[in-house]
């Protein structure tokens, strides 16, 4: 099998007149986890949205293996999962219904049992019959993250995945990420939490003034 690879070249992005990203170059190979640090409003979420094909690429190019994210969004989306600030869940559906819906729309093949297993792993088994509207912040986050377990993506995009999770939830997530890494997946993550990322094998990057630079030390500020 070929090594999976994500290659972003000279990405630039502006909102109105404001240049948020300039000449961003990012290259991540199989099993690697790139962590984006940067101040509030520095453009981390914007970069992730670009990689997730949510925003239209304005400048530069980005490919995941042979797939050009810019021109071939549909194929690209088949191989990536993005868990962002929002949980993308339907409040009136139960956890299981949410995952079933996700599975069908992403055309995954996982059976019902594996969905239930994912929910159990996330610690939500007692709530499997309840509409998720009244879930606590952390419970929603766990369910959003449980989607990683049912699709088998090549690329995982995480925007502040640790927020709202408790201690045990963080361990669970780090476990998932590690497994994903050993299976040759690619991860790009935005975070403000060097302490939590520390447990992972990762490459830190720093985004400042729209420019992305690799960071020497694993402990930034």
């Amino acid at each position, binding site marked *: 099998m070929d090594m999976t690879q994500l290659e972003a070249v000279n990405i630039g992005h502006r909102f109105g007149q404001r240049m948020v990203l300039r000449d961003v170059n990012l290259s991540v190979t199989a099993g690697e986890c790139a962590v984006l640090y940067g101040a509030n409003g520095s453009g981390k979420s914007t970069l992730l949205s670009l990689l997730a094909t949510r925003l239209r690429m304005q400048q530069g190019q980005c490919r995941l293996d042979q797939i050009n994210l810019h021109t071939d969004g549909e194929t690209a989306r088949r191989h990536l999962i993005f868990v962002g600030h929002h949980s993308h869940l*339907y409040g009136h559906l139960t956890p299981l219904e949410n995952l079933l819906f996700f599975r069908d729309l992403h*055309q995954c093949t996982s059976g019902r049992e594996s969905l239930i297993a994912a929910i159990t792993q996330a610690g939500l088994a007692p709530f499997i019959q309840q509409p998720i509207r009244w879930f606590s912040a952390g419970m929603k986050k766990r369910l959003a993250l449980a989607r990683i377990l049912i699709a088998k993506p090549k690329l995982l995009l995480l925007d502040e995945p640790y927020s709202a999770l408790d201690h045990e939830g963080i361990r669970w997530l780090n476990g998932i990420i590690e497994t994903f890494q050993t299976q040759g997946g690619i991860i790009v993550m935005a975070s403000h939490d060097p302490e939590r990322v520390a447990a992972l094998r990762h490459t830190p990057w720093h985004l400042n003034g729209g420019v992305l630079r690799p960071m020497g030390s694993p402990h930034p500020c």
Partner: protein
Amino acid sequence: MLKAIYRLAWKDVLADFRHRSTFSSMLFFSVAVLLVFQAAFEPNGQEAQRLVPGLLWTTVLFTTLMGLGRVFQSEEENGAFEGLLLTPLPRGAIFFGKWLGNLVLSLMVMIMLIPLTLILFNVNIWIHIPMLLALLLLGTMGLTALGVLLAAMTQTARSRETLLALLLLPLVAPLLIAGVQAMTEVINTGTLGGPWLNLLLIFDAIYLSLAPWGFGWLVEE
């Protein structure tokens, strides 16, 4: 992909329909609209027959309009619409999922609405019911296509309903006029056909072929 379209329609409408009373609310809303028209215009015997096409079409219009607000409502919470756009489905499929769900619901309402209107306004044109239904269905196909498109367009705008209705009504006016005229012809001559029907078909064809494409453009960022 057909499965995904079906799933989308299912989530929006059928699941809702299964344990909730969306359908009966829409039906009784349309009865209430009839009541309002009666209270406002008080048509007498002869007038009533002449007004039936107008009554049916305006009622269907308002009912559809009310239903459309619902189309993207469940997508708002937790940024679920963004989640939909992150699936590997082509935008057209998302459009048709939404369209189908709404159409099915409207169709069911119309099947009940026509006999009710004839009873309430005491008009004896029972033999024309299949033709009336066919005409309304034809009209609703175009109307719903336009409506879903505009609901998506104005989704992020504030004063969504107003704006939606504002944009929808002028575009829909030609369709509505063609529908009213074609229906008047059916009631007067008992035959389905003629230039107004052709006009209706042409509008349907235009809206249904352009709308998915427009939808794709709109949701792209």
